[in-house]
């Protein structure tokens, strides 16, 4: 590892696509299926208030107890988790597609055009994500949709940089050269040879990021910038539960546990992949 490797390869993830030790896409799929089906399986209305039943502990009727308005915590957690995972997938999907297109263009567009796009990527790589996301949500107003926009704006550059590097390699490689010589126009080389390859390689990285984005969304939710009450939001639920730590600890433990269960497979897969690639 060269001392400046950091510039090009911040986490050693660039080499990921070369081998596929675990399939992060499979994890994404499994989590997606589970969170989609869970609300139907669990049943219960996340918004239904039974004020006479507030702050009740776990019981057969409310498996994870009720919150300060007597709403079923389990139903809220399940619905909140679904919102978070969907939002996270939207963020990663938008950032990935945007990054791939912009990165491939930066590599493919000749001279100044490409360099300008590259500079734009540099600029966005040089902004601290969280605080800028907070500011964008502040401007647009809180809510899940605006949160997705904010994280996509602050997150695409990393994919664009990876895509650009990979696209450069591909563009100077044999496949594209042969295609160009046999008369295939440049834009078809990019859309037919470069983008599919780049996509396949970046998909692994992107799938692993889904877990982090879920955590980040919960963080902004805790700050009150996510889905607005009364909609269930994991971070917001933890923030609400703070006032009832002793009376109703399940109000914090349930959403926190759900977050952990969702994020753990991604982090564990990342750890596995990371270990394999960097261990040499």
């Amino acid at each position, binding site marked *: 590892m060269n001392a400046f490797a950091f510039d090009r390869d911040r986490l050693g993830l660039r080499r990921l696509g070369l081998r596929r030790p675990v399939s992060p896409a499979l994890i994404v799929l499994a989590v997606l299926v589970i969170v989609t089906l869970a609300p139907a399986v669990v049943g219960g209305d996340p918004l239904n208030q039974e004020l006479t039943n507030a702050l009740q502990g776990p019981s057969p009727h409310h498996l994870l107890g009720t919150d300060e308005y007597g709403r079923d915590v389990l139903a809220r957690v399940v619905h909140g988790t679904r919102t978070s995972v969907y939002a996270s997938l939207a963020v990663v999907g938008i950032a990935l597609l945007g990054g791939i297109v912009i990165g491939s263009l930066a590599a493919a567009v000749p001279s100044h055009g490409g360099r300008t796009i590259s500079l734009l990527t540099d600029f966005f790589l040089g902004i601290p*994500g969280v605080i800028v996301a*907070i500011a964008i949500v502040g401007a*647009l107003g809180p809510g899940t949709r605006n949160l997705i926009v904010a994280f996509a704006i602050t997150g695409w550059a990393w994919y664009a940089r990876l895509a650009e590097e990979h696209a450069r390699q591909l563009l100077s490689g044999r496949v594209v050269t042969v295609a160009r010589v046999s008369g295939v126009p440049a834009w078809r080389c990019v859309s037919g040879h470069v983008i599919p390859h780049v996509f396949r390689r970046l998909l692994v990285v992107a799938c692993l990021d889904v877990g982090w984005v879920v955590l980040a969304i919960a963080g902004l939710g805790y700050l009150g910038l996510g889905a607005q009450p009364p909609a269930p939001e994991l971070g917001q639920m933890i923030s609400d539960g703070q006032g009832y730590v002793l009376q109703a600890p399940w109000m914090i433990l349930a959403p926190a546990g759900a977050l952990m269960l969702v994020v753990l497979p991604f982090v564990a897969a990342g750890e596995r992949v990371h270990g394999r690639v960097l261990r040499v």
Partner: protein
Amino acid sequence: MRAALRWVAAFAALVLASAVAVFCLQLLVPGDPAATILSTQLGRQPSQAEIVAERAQLGLNQPFPTRLWHWIEGATHGDFGRSWATPGNVGSLIWPRIEATVRLGLVALTLAVVLALAGGIVAALFRDRTADRLLRVVVTVLACIPAFVLGVLVIQFVVVDAHIGQVLTDGSWRAALLPGALLGVTIACYWVRVVRAIALDVLNSDVVRTARARGASWPTVIRAHVLPRVVLEFLPYVGLGIGSIIGATAVMEVVFSWPGIGAYAAQAAVRRDMPVLQAVVLLSIITFRLGTDAMRGVGWILDPRRRSGTA
């Protein structure tokens, strides 16, 4: 010398570009800011005349380029305009909070660096043995728990029940220890893996093998070969950590009601106080660049290979 000049030019360009981009955040605000501010201040629908007066006072009736120019010109001497949500200048509102955040950040980063270096090198030395596995499990699990959950639990069980630390913090060094430690541990969770990977590379290198073959003891090898190289390659990550400290502390600041800039930015976002957000974002972008470049500079000073241009 030329490198320094080039750096200054690039830095100036970055600051200018970010200032423009940051000011454009205002364009994203839907509706008329003057009307929004007035209705929150007065608690009723403002009249048309009031809105016009408020627009004039905020300078919102001037064309966009003029406002942009005024804002940038003011920002050069620390004047970021008037807050939309509270009476007072943005500058005087955020400077004291930056100090508190710096305290918290320094405590957290120092602890994170120490923990990450120690943990990572130990894990690499005991690779795939019990210590390494245990550390990896702990780090993986901790990484999945959001920092604010840890914070909330610590407040309840350490501060309230065991009477260690304070619930309402004043931003002093003493008060920074507890939230700083928590934040440090969560940051160290990300870094331990990085250090472990770097340390494994170094441990597998010829230098270490030769030193061991010469009969050098492990402590000597670690001190003379492993630590210096690990630190050099780890520096960029520390730079990233220093650079993103303004955003990274935000959630922990809210949990511990820390009077810092991150919590203030979150509050400003809820109140849609754009002048405050603009100032904080501009400062955070500058901090990011300075932090990462400063650590690059330190690496250059510490690394004789880079200084002499042989690497």
